[in-house]
C-alpha cells in the first residue's frame, strides 16, 4: 500500500507545479514525445523530474538516518537535525562556500565543486558525530546527550553566522536561500552523482539490520551475541554522516523527516523489528518527502514554499502525539 502511495505521489510531483502544464503534454514528454511548448519539456525533465527523484532519495536517507540514531542512542527523539549533525554538515558547506569565494551557489557547481561541498559536509557532520560520541562515553543518560546535541547545534550555527559575517552579500544570500530547504537544489547534471552517493549510503543501512536488532537489547547483550559494538557504532555514524551530509549539502538542513518518519513507521507497522521496520522506513521517508514537496508547490502560480516551512507542520504533531501517548505505545516499554 505504501508503494502505491509512493508511486502516486511521485507522479503528482511530476504532474503538478507552479506552471500549469496539461497532463497530456506531461505524459508525452515523459514518454519522450514532443510537447506544445519547448519550455514545458525543460520544466518537466530538468526541474520536476530531478526534484521528485531528489525528494524520493532524501526522504529515505533522512528517515533511515533518524531510525539508526534512535536505535543506536536508545532515544526516540534522536535525529540528524536535533543532534546537530545537520548543522555540522551546514558548517562544512559554509566553509567550502567561503573558501570557493563565497559566491558559489550550490546549483551552479561543477563536479569538482560538488565533491568539495560533499566532502566539506561529510567532514562537518562527522566532526559533530565524534564530539557526540565523546560525550556519549561520558554521560550515560540519553536525554542529557540529546541536550548536548542541541547545544552543539547552536554552537555550529553561531560559527556559521560568524562565517557569514565575513562572506560577501551574495554568499550570505545564497546561504540563506539554501537554509530554507528545497528538493530542487540538485540539477539534472548532478543527479547521477547525487543519487549514486545516496543509494550507496542506503544500501549501507540495509546491511545494519542484524546488529540494529541486537542493539535493541542493549550494548552488552549485543556484544554477547557476537556483535562488535565498536565497529557497528562507527559504521552507523559513518553511514548517517554520509547520508545527512549529502542531503544537507544539496537540499539544506531539513528538519523533522528524520525525527518523525521512524515513529510513523513503527506506529503503522506495530513493530521495532528492523528486518521490516528499516525497509518500511525507507519507503515512508520517500512518501513523506514527496508529500512535503507537493505541499511546497501548492500555492500554484504564486511561487514555491520553503521546505522547512512545511516539514514541521507534518512532523511536529506526530512527535507530540508520540510523546503524549508514550505509556500506551508498545515500542516505548
Amino acid at each position, binding site marked *: 500500500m505504501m508503494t502505491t502511495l509512493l508511486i502516486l505521489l511521485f507522479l503528482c510531483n511530476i504532474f503538478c507545479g507552479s506552471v500549469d502544464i496539461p497532463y497530456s503534454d506531461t505524459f508525452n514528454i515523459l514518454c519522450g514525445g514532443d510537447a506544445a511548448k519547448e519550455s514545458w519539456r525543460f520544466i518537466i525533465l530538468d526541474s520536476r523530474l530531478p526534484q521528485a527523484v531528489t525528494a524520493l532519495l532524501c526522504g529515505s536517507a533522512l528517515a533511515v538516518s533518524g531510525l539508526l540514531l534512535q536505535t543506536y542512542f*536508545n532515544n526516540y527523539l534522536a535525529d540528524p537535525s536535533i543532534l546537530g549533525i545537520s548543522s555540522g554538515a551546514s558548517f562544512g558547506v559554509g566553509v567550502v562556500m567561503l573558501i570557493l569565494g563565497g559566491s558559489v551557489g550550490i546549483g551552479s557547481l561543477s563536479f569538482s565543486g560538488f565533491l568539495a561541498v560533499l566532502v566539506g559536509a561529510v567532514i562537518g557532520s562527522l566532526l559533530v558525530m565524534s564530539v557526540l560520541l565523546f560525550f556519549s562515553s561520558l554521560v550515560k543518560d540519553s536525554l542529557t546527550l540529546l541536550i548536548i546535541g542541541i547545544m552543539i547545534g547552536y554552537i555550529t550555527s553561531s560559527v556559521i553566522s560568524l562565517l557569514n559575517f565575513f562572506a560577501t552579500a551574495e554568499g550570505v544570500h545564497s546561504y540563506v536561500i539554501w537554509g530554507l530547504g528545497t528538493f530542487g537544489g540538485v540539477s539534472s547534471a548532478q543527479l547521477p552523482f547525487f543519487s549514486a552517493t545516496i543509494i550507496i549510503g542506503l544500501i549501507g543501512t540495509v*546491511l545494519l*539490520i*542484524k546488529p540494529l*536488532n*541486537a542493539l*535493541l*537489547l*542493549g550494548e*552488552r*547483550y549485543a*556484544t*554477547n*551475541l*557476537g*556483535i*562488535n559494538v565498536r565497529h557497528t557504532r562507527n559504521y552507523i555514524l559513518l553511514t548517517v554522516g554520509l547520508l545527512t551530509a549529502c542531503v544537507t549539502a544539496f537540499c539544506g538542513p531539513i528538519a523533522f523527516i528524520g525525527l518523525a518518519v521512524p515513529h510513523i513507521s*513503527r506506529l503503522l507497522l*506495530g*513493530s*521495532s*523489528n528492523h*528486518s521490516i521496520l528499516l525497509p518500511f522506513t525507507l519507503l515512508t521517508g520517500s512518501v513523506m518527502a514527496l508529500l512535503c514537496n507537493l505541499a511546497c508547490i501548492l500555492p500554484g502560480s504564486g511561487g514555491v514554499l520553503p521546505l522547512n516551512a512545511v516539514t514541521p507542520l507534518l512532523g511536529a504533531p506526530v512527535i507530540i502525539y508520540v510523546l503524549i501517548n508514550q505509556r500506551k*505505545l*508498545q*515500542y*516505548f*516499554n
Partner: protein
Amino acid sequence: MAMSTLLFAKNLCIGYHSNGGNIQIHQDLNFSLRRGELISLCGPNGAGKSTLLRTIANLQPPLSGEIEVLEKPMKSYSEKELSHAITVVLTDRAHTGGLTVKEVVALGRQPYTGFFGRLSQEDKTLVDSAVESVGMTGKEEVYMSELSDGERQKVMIAKSLVQECPIVILDEPTAFLDVASRIEITQLLHDIAHQQDRAVLLSTHDLEQALRLSDQLWLLTKNGLQTGTPEDLVSNHQIDTLFEGRNVFFDDKTWTFRSKTR
C-alpha cells in the same frame, strides 16, 4: 571426550578502569566452571557479583589475571567466537517493547544466522522448543511490552538457551519473579546444567534455594571468593561469612537463616 572444565580463572583481578587509575574490587580470584554443574553466586549487595559475572562473560575487561575458555585464553576470542561459548542473561534494561516474544528469542540465534539474520527451519524449531521450555507457549506472538517482569525474564532465558552455549551466565535471573516462577526457573536452570551438560552460573539473593539446588556455591564478600559444595560450606561454617556485622546467622541443623536476637 568432552572436557569437563569449561572455563577457569587464575589470579583474576576485577574492577573498573577510571581516569584516576584502577578501582580494584577483588584480586587473586581463582575458580573454574565445569560441565553439568549449577553454580550459585551469593553475596551481599555491592560485593561485586555483577562485576565478576560481566568479567567472566568478557563484557568488561579484567584488570589483570587470566581467564581460559574451552582451553583457549579469553583474549584470543573474537566477539563472534565467544558468542558460541558463553551466553548471558543480564539485568540491563532492554528496549524490546516493540518486538514479539518469538522475535526476541530468535535474537539468540544471531551468532549462527547469516548476514541478514534470516532463520532456518532448524533455528525456528529451536526457538519454539526454548519458548516451550520456559513455559511461554501460546505467547509467541505477544509483544514484550505486554509481559510482566517475570515473563520478560523467562523470554531472556529462552534467548540464552537458543544461543546453545556450553556456558550460561545469569545475573539475578529470579530477582523479579514470584515464588512459583522462581522455583520453576531455578529448576529449569538446574535441568539445563544436568541434562544438557552445560555449566550454569547464576547470581542470586535466594540463599536457601541456592543451598538446595546448587552443585557449587560461590560466596563473594569483601574478603574474597569462597567456593565449594553447599554441604562443605555449611559444615565449615562458611555461610556465616556472608552476614559479617549483621544480625543474622545460618542454623546448620535446620538449614535456615535466623536472627540472632531471637
